[in-house]
């Protein structure tokens, strides 16, 4: 452990704990949450570790309150997060939208379990992928990352904070019970200050400051509360001053910018990993724990002489549509294993339309895929 209490070294820890440590390494000093299986360990770790590094843990009365407390804390300049699972994720949707509208940096980890409703609280699911994209009302863009191992829980939590601070948008960590509860080796490096992104601060005087006047990259610099800017922010459609503006023109300008600041920066945001795609005629497009299972299936397919590859999505939102369109020119088919009844497959289908087939390998949750089912789908796709 380094002097300031931030971990450094090689550890054996579960994904939830790695997520908490990633947050602390990223500079997160505020956590508001509510216990929920299988994300509770994130809160437990934060309640132990945050006071150790001078941060604040608060257990709220529900997930609605947790999300709001995170937003409030972010406006004081703190990096802030919460963690939850399906039912809590649903409760957070209202104020995830407020976070988008107020352009508030923060991180929300969803350790997914199988739903709908209470579903299988202790068992894996990936059924919230579309909710991550569309769960709050209105038109907006969001960033969502999907870790597939405890190491990625650590690494991507740092990435999540960086993207959130950079783009002034809540960033979702769409983990799952299998990744959250598995224990593996996690290497925690000392993170240099220059590896961490901090929100852009106002560059003019206090009198000239307009809370929602964007810079050229469409992102407005952010004042923090208590510094004398005396700014106003509202969940209502607003103009550059942050004042309510109840017109179609103001709505057009704001909603376009909120989406475009993500859309126009897709190249900087989108992350994926490829395994043996160069000559592939079938590509398994997978994310999270399913990508790890898919890796086995692809290896087995290669061993059996099939030209199979893996595209592991690390960001699911924004979606890697350009890359999938490119690959669609080359492959016969995409195989999409998901622990739901077909969500991200719809996006793959949209991008591959007319060029390549798409095969869903659906698994309803409670366990991960049997690699054989993915291998079988690869075989069908090659045929």
């Amino acid at each position, binding site marked *: 452990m380094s002097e300031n209490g931030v971990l450094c070294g090689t550890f054996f820890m579960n994904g939830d704990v790695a997520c908490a440590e990633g947050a602390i390494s990223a500079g997160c000093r505020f956590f508001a949450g509510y216990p929920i299986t299988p994300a509770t360990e994130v809160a437990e770790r934060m309640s132990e570790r945050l006071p150790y590094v001078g941060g604040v843990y*608060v257990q709220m009365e529900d997930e609605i*309150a947790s999300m*709001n407390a995170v937003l409030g804390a972010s406006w004081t300049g703190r990096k802030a997060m919460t963690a939850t699972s399906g039912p809590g994720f649903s409760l957070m949707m209202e104020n995830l939208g407020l976070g988008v509208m107020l352009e508030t940096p923060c991180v929300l980890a969803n350790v997914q379990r199988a739903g709908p409703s209470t579903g299988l609280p202790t068992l894996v699911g990936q059924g919230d992928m579309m909710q991550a994209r569309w769960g709050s009302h209105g038109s907006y863009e969001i960033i969502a990352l999907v870790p597939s191992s405890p190491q990625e829980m650590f690494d991507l939590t740092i990435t999540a904070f960086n993207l959130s601070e950079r783009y002034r948008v809540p960033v979702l960590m769409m983990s799952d019970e299998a990744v959250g509860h598995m224990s593996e080796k996690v290497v925690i490096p000392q993170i240099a200050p220059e590896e961490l992104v901090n929100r852009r601060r106002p560059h003019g005087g206090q009198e000239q400051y307009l809370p929602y006047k964007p810079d050229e990259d469409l992102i407005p610099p952010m004042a923090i509360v208590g510094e004398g800017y005396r700014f*106003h922010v509202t969940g209502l459609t607003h103009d550059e001053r942050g004042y309510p503006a109840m017109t179609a023109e103001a709505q057009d300008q704001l909603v376009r910018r909120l989406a475009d600041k993500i859309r126009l920066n897709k190249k900087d945001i989108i992350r994926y990993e490829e395994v043996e795609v160069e000559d592939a005629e079938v590509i398994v497009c997978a994310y999270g724990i399913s990508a790890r299972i898919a890796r086995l299936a692809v290896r087995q397919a290669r061993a059996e002489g099939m030209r199979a590859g893996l595209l592991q999505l690390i960001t699911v939102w924004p979606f890697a549509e350009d890359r999938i369109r490119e690959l669609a020119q080359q492959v016969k088919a995409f195989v999409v294993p998901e622990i739901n009844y077909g969500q991200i497959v719809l996006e793959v289908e949209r991008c591959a339309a007319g060029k390549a087939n798409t095969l869903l390998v659906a698994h309803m949750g409670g366990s991960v895929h049997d690699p054989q089912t993915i291998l079988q789908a690869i075989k069908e796709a090659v045929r």
Partner: protein
Amino acid sequence: MTSTTKVEERTLDSLLRLDRLPHIWCPGCGIGPAVGCFIRAVEDSGLNPDKIALVSGIGCTGRVAGYVKLDSFHTTHGRALPFATGLNLGNPDLNVVVFSGDGDLLAIGGNHLIHAARRNMDMTIICLNNFNYGMTGGQMGPTTPLDARSNTSPYGNIEYPFNVPYLVAASGATYVARWTVLHARQLEWSIAEAMIKPGFSFIEVLGPCPTLYGRMNKQPKGMDTMHHYQEKSVVKNGADPKDVGITAEGPIVVGKFVDIERPTFWEQCKLVIDRAQAKKNE
């Protein structure tokens, strides 16, 4: 009420967003006078306005955040308190004020209210109670008196309302008061006192809603309601909160009901940080 009137010459324009005027509130509405008391209280308190954060929820009173020249947050319906909790814990040096309505704080935000009081969050809550949902057009809510008319209780309200001071006192608030907007001076002092006092301070402010609640309940003008306050209100500082419920027949008991000491949530957080640091140094 005092019988003498002193005309004051002080401008509080620096605490208002003049570029947002005129405001949206109806003639005779009680919110404007309550905001007036608040900004005078800010001046009375001697607190640095740069360090005050004001948070509102949704509704007519929710619009207060948009008219004060402070760092101000117009959040979502019922969620002002948890948002304010984040502000307070993120920067405990701030003076956090939540200014919102009865429906916002007591119905949709009711759970947040009792828990913020229980934790003794260091913040001041100004709850403008006009007995109905104004912004949506006059529906009954958790403070609407029994038998009162509203656009969703056209046959008379069948629900028993909250006794608000009793609720927040039982939940753990360390300062509880109630005034009407007729009691302008007492309200102003009370807000200043509450803002200076650490811990969860709650002030219920009764204010007229002539356009909706008043019109439907034989008080069609703001002044009608003000006369009603004058006739019915009784100042009883120190009254037991359980005895101050508002009924059709009884008096409107106003005053400061609770003023006690209890560690704030932030003080408790500091204990935790100290314990964790001690462990670190072991």
